């Protein structure tokens, strides 16, 4: 057996043994057994850490005898992208998630009071992490070997070879792991889970904003949020966390949040959402067990009555429902983006209205809510007033009174890719957008590197759509994006506001 898989197997058995030990400790009210369980969890963490380090080593040493390394790495890639390639695919990202699950559980066990309720909460959290480790072994082994060792790999998806993608997935998975603890603590009514949920909220906020920034800079369509099911899948837990923070019905939102965390994985792994957005590789249905479990708990909590003095939690609930309805409708249909805009924006506006006119109530979080107002203005401007054009330059064209002149197209090559640089002159600025054609057998080998000229009020955004093989003409996408700077500023202020509690 491959060493990495052996490490994961051992981690699973230690985790399972810990779960059984927590169960025995709870049944027999025996703190000694709980201490053994705790040591077993630390051991499982050490083994998972070793598996992650081993995978890092395989990536950095170009060990293409491993299928996962072969598919996601390439000799020409820089070391930093070889590192981020670890979470570029399903297997590596799930290994990372399991590592975070055990890390967070270990932190939970190490700090705070130790009593029977904590043992019960640990039993649930340990049970969840061992189940997810089991799914990793069953469906997503990152250490699967190839019969021969290829000289080079296929390479990471070129769209992911950006600095944002080094941080975005780990932040999201860390947030998901952190939110399991509040779920378990609410289930057994133990302690104050708020700090865990707040930490999860901080990491998920940063992760989502980085994802939006990456989409804007990399995908070349002039937007930061496309209401894609995969994007929505990460927005739903974020909304549930926001509702949790504002609500008095915290157990309900802790369960709903956990449900969405698992659902996010299920959506992208099962192929249940239309085939353009997900990968059906089997095993996704096994997540349903956890979704049903969380759903039953949430329903039971709701039956107890939903009385909340804070209007914000009603608004967040409505946001969750409209986003979830649109995402689920994608099971069978194409959902027009306008649905999300016409339902989500009024709720967002109502939220901002409450923030502005009830400022006395929220003054403790002035910075956070000020950031939210900036974010709303920016997002509304982009969603409502962005203008986009497809322009063929052979060699010039005029759009909305702006003359674009193609000055030059140059072609260069390095070990990783070919680069077409298109130089364009216009009265709103000179642009040098690029089009990369990566030397990989992957799809999406053509990636646009946009060029943006910004003032505070608007971005002039140019992306290359195609170039003529004779380098005489090019087709570009040109966008005028109003107030997008407020989206980034608002996001930054919101994030700082969450951290500093001002």
């Amino acid at each position, binding site marked *: 057996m491959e060493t990495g898989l052996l490490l994961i197997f051992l981690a699973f058995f230690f985790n399972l043994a810990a779960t059984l030990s927590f169960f025995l400790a709870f049944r027999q009210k025996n703190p000694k057994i709980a201490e053994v369980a705790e040591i077993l969890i630390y051991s499982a963490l050490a083994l998972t850490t070793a598996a992650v380090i081993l995978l890092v080593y395989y990536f950095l040493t170009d060990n293409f005898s491993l299928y996962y390394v072969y598919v996601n790495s390439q000799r020409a890639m820089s070391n930093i992208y070889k590192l981020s390639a670890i*979470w570029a695919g399903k297997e590596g990202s799930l290994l990372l998630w399991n590592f975070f699950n055990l890390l967070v559980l270990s932190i939970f066990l190490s700090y705070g009071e130790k009593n029977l309720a904590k043992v019960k909460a640990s039993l649930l959290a340990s049970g969840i992490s061992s189940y997810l480790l089991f799914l990793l072994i069953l469906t997503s082994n990152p250490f699967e070997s190839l019969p021969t060792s290829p000289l080079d790999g296929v390479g990471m*998806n070129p*769209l992911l070879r950006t600095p944002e993608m080094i941080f975005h997935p780990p932040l999201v998975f860390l947030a998901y792991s952190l939110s399991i603890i509040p779920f378990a603590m609410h289930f057994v009514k133990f302690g104050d889970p708020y700090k865990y949920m707040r930490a999860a909220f901080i990491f998920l906020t940063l992760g989502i904003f980085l994802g939006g920034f990456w989409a804007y800079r990399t995908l070349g369509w002039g937007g930061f949020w496309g209401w894609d099911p995969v994007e929505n899948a990460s927005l739903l837990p974020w909304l549930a966390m926001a509702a949790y923070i504002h609500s008095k019905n915290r157990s309900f939102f802790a369960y709903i949040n956990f449900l969405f965390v698992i659902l996010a994985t299920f959506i992208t792994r099962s192929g249940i959402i239309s085939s*353009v957005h997900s990968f059906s590789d089997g095993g996704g249905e096994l997540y349903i067990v956890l979704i049903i479990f969380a759903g039953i708990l949430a329903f039971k909590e709701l039956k107890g009555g939903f009385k909340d003095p804070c209007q914000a939690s009603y608004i967040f609930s*409505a946001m969750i429902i409209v986003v979830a309805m*649109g995402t689920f409708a994608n099971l069978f249909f194409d959902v027009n983006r306008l649905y999300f805009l016409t*339902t989500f924006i009024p709720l967002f506006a109502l939220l901002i209205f409450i923030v502005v006119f009830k400022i006395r109530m929220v003054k403790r979080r002035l910075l956070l809510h000020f950031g939210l107002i900036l974010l709303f203005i920016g997002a509304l401007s982009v969603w409502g007033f962005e203008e986009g054009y497809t322009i063929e330059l052979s060699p010039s064209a005029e759009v909305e009174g702006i003359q674009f002149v193609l000055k030059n197209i140059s072609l260069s090559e390095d070990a990783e890719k070919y680069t077409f640089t298109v130089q364009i002159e216009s009265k709103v600025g000179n642009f040098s957008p690029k089009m990369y054609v990566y030397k990989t057998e992957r799809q999406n080998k053509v990636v646009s590197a946009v060029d943006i000229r910004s003032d505070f009020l608007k971005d002039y955004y140019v992306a290359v759509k195609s170039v003529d093989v004779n380098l005489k003409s090019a*087709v570009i996408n040109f966008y005028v994006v109003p107030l997008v700077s407020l989206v980034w500023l608002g996001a930054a202020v919101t994030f700082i506001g969450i951290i500093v509690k001002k």
Partner: protein
Amino acid sequence: MAKLALLGFIVFISLAAVVLFHSISPYLTPSQIVGMGEAKNVKVIGKTKEVSINGNSTIFKITDGKTEILAVYNGILDVISEEIVAVGDWNGNFLIAKEILQKCHTEYGG
């Protein structure tokens, strides 16, 4: 106050359901679209084949295994034999694709 908020909540969700009902449209397969007349902004799902680049445009076929239609995209399409959704105008003979949707760029739920 709580009852009023709950009422507003229920009314809004009901309205959202109505908006959703009017915002959904099915994906069409080549077999379905081939018998249609002109249609704007259709979304055709299928696999690409016979992809060729002509200047700044890509000419290719979309097939559902039974029927295939011709499509033209003003840009470079680098996906071969992969399932796509082509968004564009159908003129009765071929699809003028304005947007090509491919598998998710993230490839996982991150």
